[in-house]
C-alpha cells in the first residue's frame, strides 16, 4: 500500500486510541456528588505502594456502598484516583488536576514523603484538606493546617525500635544497614541511633544499600566482621527479605530489627526461614483479635485475595476518618455541608464548608481504626501506639505494644 494510505490508517488508529483513552475515563458528573481525590504511585518504582493505597480506599468505599448506598448526607461519594508515576513533579500535576479540574473536596495521599511534600502546598493554598496515610517525614504536616497524616512519625518509631532493642532484647551493640535512596530509611536510622545512644547502646557500623539492589553480600560481610548483637534494617520489605536470606547464608545468626517498611504479605515469601528471629515495628499486627481489624481483613481478603499491608490499612483509616468527618458535618450543619457538593465548586459556601471539614478532621479523637486508636495531635499527626511483630516459625506474631 502507498505511504499515503499507510499514513491515513496510522493516523486513524492513533486518533482512535487517543479517543479510546479519553473515553475510558469520562464518567460521573451530572448529578451533585461528593468528589474525593486520591493521588498515588500507580505506576513506576513505587507502584506497589500506590496500589495498596488505592485498594484500602476502595474497601472503605465498598463499606459505604454496603451501609448507605455510598452516600453521605444524601450525596453520592465518588473517588477520583490519579497516578503520579512515582515522581514528585507528576504528583504536583496530579494534585493540580484533582483540585482545579475535578474540584475535589479532600485529597488522600501520598505514601512517599517527597510526593506528599509536592502535593501538600497546592492543597494548603487551595484550602482543601489532605490526609496522608503513611508519609513519615515531619515536614509534611508542617506545610499548613490543612495537611494531616494517619501514621506516627519516624521520630516515634525509631525511638520505639531503640527501646525495644535496648530494653526488651537487652542488646547494646548493633549494626545498621540502611537504604541510601530512601528518605524514610535514612531518617528512621537516624532517629533510632539518637534514642539508642541515649539508652546507652552503641552503633558499631553503618552500611548502605540502594532500593532495587539484589546483592548485599559485600555489606553483610563487613557487618559480620564487626560482630554486632543485632542488625537493624530500617528499609522496605523487598530488600529486607533478600538481606535476611543472604545474611543467614553468610552465617549471621543475630536478630534482625526492622521498621514498618517491612510490612507486607510478601515479606515471609521473600525472606522465608531466614526471617526467624527477626522483629519489626508496625502499625498493626494482623493476628491481634481486634474486631475492627479482623472485619477489615475479611473484607479485604474477599475483594483482593491477599492480605493488605500497613499502607492499605492506613489508607482505609484515612478514607474512613474523612467519611466520618463528612458524616458529622452533614448531621451537625447540613446547610454548610451542601457546599461540598460538586455543583457548588468555587462558591463561598464551598470555602466555608472546607473550613468546617478541616476543623472536624483536626478534631479526630480516639477514632477506632484498623491501624490502632487514632487521635490527631495539635500538629495534625496521629498519636498512636506502635506494635512489635516477632517472626518465628515462618509466621508473624504480635509481640508487644509501645505507647507514645
Amino acid at each position: 500500500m502507498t505511504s499515503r494510505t499507510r499514513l491515513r490508517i496510522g493516523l486513524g488508529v492513533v486518533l482512535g486510541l487517543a479517543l479510546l483513552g479519553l473515553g475510558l475515563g469520562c464518567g460521573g458528573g451530572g448529578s451533585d456528588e461528593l468528589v474525593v481525590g486520591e493521588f498515588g504511585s500507580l505506576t513506576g518504582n513505587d507502584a506497589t505502594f500506590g496500589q495498596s493505597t488505592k485498594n484500602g480506599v476502595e474497601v472503605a468505599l465498598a463499606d459505604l456502598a454496603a451501609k448507605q448506598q455510598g452516600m453521605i448526607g444524601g450525596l453520592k461519594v465518588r473517588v477520583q484516583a490519579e497516578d503520579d508515576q512515582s515522581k514528585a513533579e507528576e504528583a504536583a500535576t496530579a494534585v493540580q488536576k484533582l483540585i482545579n479540574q475535578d474540584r475535589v473536596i479532600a485529597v488522600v495521599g501520598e505514601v512517599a514523603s517527597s510526593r506528599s511534600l509536592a502535593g501538600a502546598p497546592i492543597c494548603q493554598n487551595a484550602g482543601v484538606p489532605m490526609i496522608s496515610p503513611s508519609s513519615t517525614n515531619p515536614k509534611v504536616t508542617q506545610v499548613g493546617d490543612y495537611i494531616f497524616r494517619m501514621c506516627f512519625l519516624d521520630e516515634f518509631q525509631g525511638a520505639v525500635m531503640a527501646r525495644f532493642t535496648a530494653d526488651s532484647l537487652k542488646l547494646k551493640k548493633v549494626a545498621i544497614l540502611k537504604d541510601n535512596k530512601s528518605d524514610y530509611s535514612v531518617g528512621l536510622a537516624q532517629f533510632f541511633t539518637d534514642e539508642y545512644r541515649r539508652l546507652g547502646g552503641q552503633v558499631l557500623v553503618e552500611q548502605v544499600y540502594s532500593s532495587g539492589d539484589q546483592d548485599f553480600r559485600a555489606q553483610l560481610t563487613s557487618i559480620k566482621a564487626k560482630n554486632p548483637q543485632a542488625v537493624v534494617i530500617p528499609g522496605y520489605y523487598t530488600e529486607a527479605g533478600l538481606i535476611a536470606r543472604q545474611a543467614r547464608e553468610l552465617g549471621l545468626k543475630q536478630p534482625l530489627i526492622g521498621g514498618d517498611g517491612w510490612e507486607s504479605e510478601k515479606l515471609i515469601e521473600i525472606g522465608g526461614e531466614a526471617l526467624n528471629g527477626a522483629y519489626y515495628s508496625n502499625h498493626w499486627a494482623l493476628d491481634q483479635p481486634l474486631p475492627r481489624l479482623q472485619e477489615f481483613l475479611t473484607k479485604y481478603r474477599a475483594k483482593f485475595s491477599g492480605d493488605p499491608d500497613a499502607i492499605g490499612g492506613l489508607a482505609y483509616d484515612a478514607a474512613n476518618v474523612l467519611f466520618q468527618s463528612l458524616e458529622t458535618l452533614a448531621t451537625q450543619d447540613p446547610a454548610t455541608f451542601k457546599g461540598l457538593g460538586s455543583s457548588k465548586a468555587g462558591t463561598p459556601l464551598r470555602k466555608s464548608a472546607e473550613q468546617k471539614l478541616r476543623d472536624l478532621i483536626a478534631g479526630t479523637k480516639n477514632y477506632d481504626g484498623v491501624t490502632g486508636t487514632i487521635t490527631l495531635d495539635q500538629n495534625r499527626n496521629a498519636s498512636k501506639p506502635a506494635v512489635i511483630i516477632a517472626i518465628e516459625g515462618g509466621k508473624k506474631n504480635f509481640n508487644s505494644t509501645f505507647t507514645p
Partner: protein
Amino acid sequence: MSEFLQQLINGVTLGCVYALIALGYTMVYGILRLINFAHGDVYMLGAFFGLYAARWLGAQTHPNPASALAVLLIAMAGCGLVGLIIERAAYKPVRQSSRLAALITAIGVSLLLENGGRLVFGADPKFFPQIIPATNIALGGGVTISNQQLIILGVSIALMIVLRVIVLYTRVGKAMRAVSHNHTAAAMMGISVDRIISVTFVFGSMLAAAAGVLVALENPKIEPYMGILPGLKAFVAAVLGGIGNIPGAVLGGLVMGIAEVMVVGYVSPTYRDAIAFVLLIVILLVRPAGILGTATAEKV
C-alpha cells in the same frame, strides 16, 4: 585472597548472565544494525514465563531437575515466540527507515513490554520459587560456591557452545553470517533474508529468556521493570566486546560482570550502576571498535 576469589566467582557468574543477554543484542545488531532496546524486557519476560511455568508444573513443591529443565525450556520457547512477534510486527516495517526511527520503535516496544507486563502481572514484585534448593559447596580457603551459581555457569556455557556450533557449523548459521555481511548478496545466493532475521531474533530471545530464569534462581525477586538496567549493562557489554562479534559479547559480558562485582566489593555499592558506563567510555576511547571488534574502514 579468599575474598578476592569469592568475588571472582561471583563476578564470573554475573558475567555469564550478562553474556547471555549480550549475545542477543550482538546478533541482532550484526544482522540489522539495530539496537534492540526491548531485549532487556524479553529477559524480564523469561523470568515471568519461568515463574508461571514453575507454578503450573508445581515445581516448588516437588523440586527436581526434570521440572527445572522444563521450566527453562518453556520460558525459552515462550520468549522465542515473543521475539518473533516483535520482529514481524514492529521491526520489519521500519527496516527501511532511518536508524533513529527504528530505535524509537524499539524503545516503544520496550515501554510496551514493561507497562503491559505491569498490567498483566501486577506491579508488586513476585517471588520466583526455589525449583532447585540452594546448597553451598566449600571450595576450600573460605571460598564457597552455591549450586545455583554452578547451574548458571553450566547452563550459560552450554548454551554458548550450542550457539557457536549453530553459527559455525550449520547451514542456518552460515546463512546468518552471510546476512550479517551483506543482505543483498545473501539474497542473491538464495537465502531468505526475512526468515534468517526472524531466526536471529528467536535465538537471541531464547538466550535472554534463559538468562532471566537463571537469574531468578539466585535472586528470586522479579518485577516488570527488572529488565531495564541489566539490558542496558548487557548492551554495554556487547559494545565492549565489539558489537556484532559473538565471542566479543561473551568476553564483554564477563568483563562487565567481574568489574561490577569488584567495584561493589572493594569500592562502594552505590557506584554499581555507573561502573558499567565508565568502563565502556574508557574502552571506547582507547579502542573504539571494542575489544574484539575490527575497525571497519569507512568506504567513501
